[in-house]
């Protein structure tokens, strides 16, 4: 079968796995949709360096399995290939994500002003610690449905990981243009971000479990924790 007349670009364009084509200077010649989103979290240079380091010794394609982690993106393998000296391609394979097995029972949740929960947890934190703490909150956030108890527990554990930090910046904001689908309803996302000069990681597993229970996406990093909380109405 003659395939030369078929245009494959659209298939790559809409592939869920990022695909990037660099030239020999590291300039991007082509990138698909998934790669475009990925570049919000990682630099062009970093990915080009990876492509060059894992390139096959001579012309051809080589797949290497390795774990790459950029914020919410986790990849388990990459394929690097080139058939001339001018172009090199990099394809990253998404690690399948486990779908939360627990269904969220939205009717059992209570409409809550998240700022109150946040402030109460800050007061709790202050009974034990005297670290300087800055809060930038959005008082206009609409109240939304949440399990108050689980969420408070989650906040307590998160704050505890910052118990030894001497600068803690907390901010709460609506993520414009981003949504999550819960029970076939499109919900807005609010982001709680806590940045400090260090933190303990001893309870990270518990934080992940509690977040998953409330359908909250959590990004745990060395100096920060970000929660993406669905604004369930």
């Amino acid at each position, binding site marked *: 079968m003659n395939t030369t007349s078929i245009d494959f670009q659209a298939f790559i364009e809409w592939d869920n796995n990022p695909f990037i084509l660099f030239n020999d200077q590291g300039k991007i010649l082509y990138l698909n949709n998934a790669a475009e989103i990925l570049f919000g979290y990682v630099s062009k240079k970093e990915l080009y360096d990876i492509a060059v380091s894992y390139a096959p010794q001579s012309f051809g394609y080589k797949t290497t399995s390795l774990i790459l982690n950029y914020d919410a993106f986790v990849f388990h393998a990459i394929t690097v290939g080139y058939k001339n000296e001018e172009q090199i391609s990099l394809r990253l394979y998404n690690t399948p994500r486990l779908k939360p097995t627990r269904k969220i029972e939205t009717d059992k949740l209570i409409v809550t002003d998240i700022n*109150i929960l946040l402030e109460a947890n800050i007061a709790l934190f202050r009974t034990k610690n005297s670290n300087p703490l800055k809060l930038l909150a959005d008082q206009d956030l609409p109240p939304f449905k949440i399990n108050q108890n*689980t969420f*408070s*527990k989650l906040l307590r554990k998160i704050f505890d990981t910052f118990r030894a930090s001497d600068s803690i910046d907390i901010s709460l904001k609506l993520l414009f243009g981003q949504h999550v689908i819960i029970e076939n309803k499109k919900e807005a996302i609010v982001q709680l971000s806590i940045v400090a000069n260090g933190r303990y990681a001893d309870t990270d597993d518990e934080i992940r479990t509690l977040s998953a229970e409330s359908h909250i996406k959590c990004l745990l990093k060395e100096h920060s924790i970000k929660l993406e909380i669905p604004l369930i109405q």
Partner: protein
Amino acid sequence: METFFTTSDKIQHIIKSFHLTKTLYVSSIIIGEAHIGKKSLARYLFPDAPLVSGEDQEEVEIALENHDELIITDFEKLSNQSTLDFSNKRIIATANYMGNQALIDDLFAFIYTMPSLQERPEDVKYLKDMFIHEAQATLMLKDKDIDADTIPLNLTMNSKSLKKSIFSHLSKHSMDHKDIEEIIYYYLLKHLDGNDGYKEYLGLYEKPLIEAGLKKYGSQLQLSQVLGINRNTLRKKIYEHDID
């Protein structure tokens, strides 16, 4: 309305946090030594909430079924902690110690530790004045009978021992001749027996007499003159009663 007095920053933060979560359905626990005001604090913050004690497991279970808002005291005494369901309820528990940490951690969203009285000198001052007033009213004492600065304060069991030390100090210091006679009378009525009673119980009178005398007059020579006994006799008695 009942008030709760404190100058402790820690407790102020606890109160602030409770005020914020007052309308929310979250579970909280206050942990701290006995008699430091945990229950009073819970009562002050939630004056209308029903209150049950962890000593009575059945009562707690029934109350949990019937109320959305509940104060549970002595939480550490409950043996069925792991079976409790606090979801969508407003629970305020108090406990003298943590017990099973993992379980407490799992059950409660807000875990507060309350400082003991020893860590709150300002609060002790306030409680001391309060207990002195109470003792004054109970024992019917006049202001001039009381020298608040000389009262030794015992904080080993927080407010319980503090109150006891104030009451016992004030009642001791307000006794007259007749009270003392009466106390000795009842004491002897209970304990007197054997065949050497006179000598045995003479010390009740002699020992405090000599101790107070030595403190007041400083030297044995002077005291023997005040007491009108021979110096050698006094010496002997000091030795007998093992007085320094």
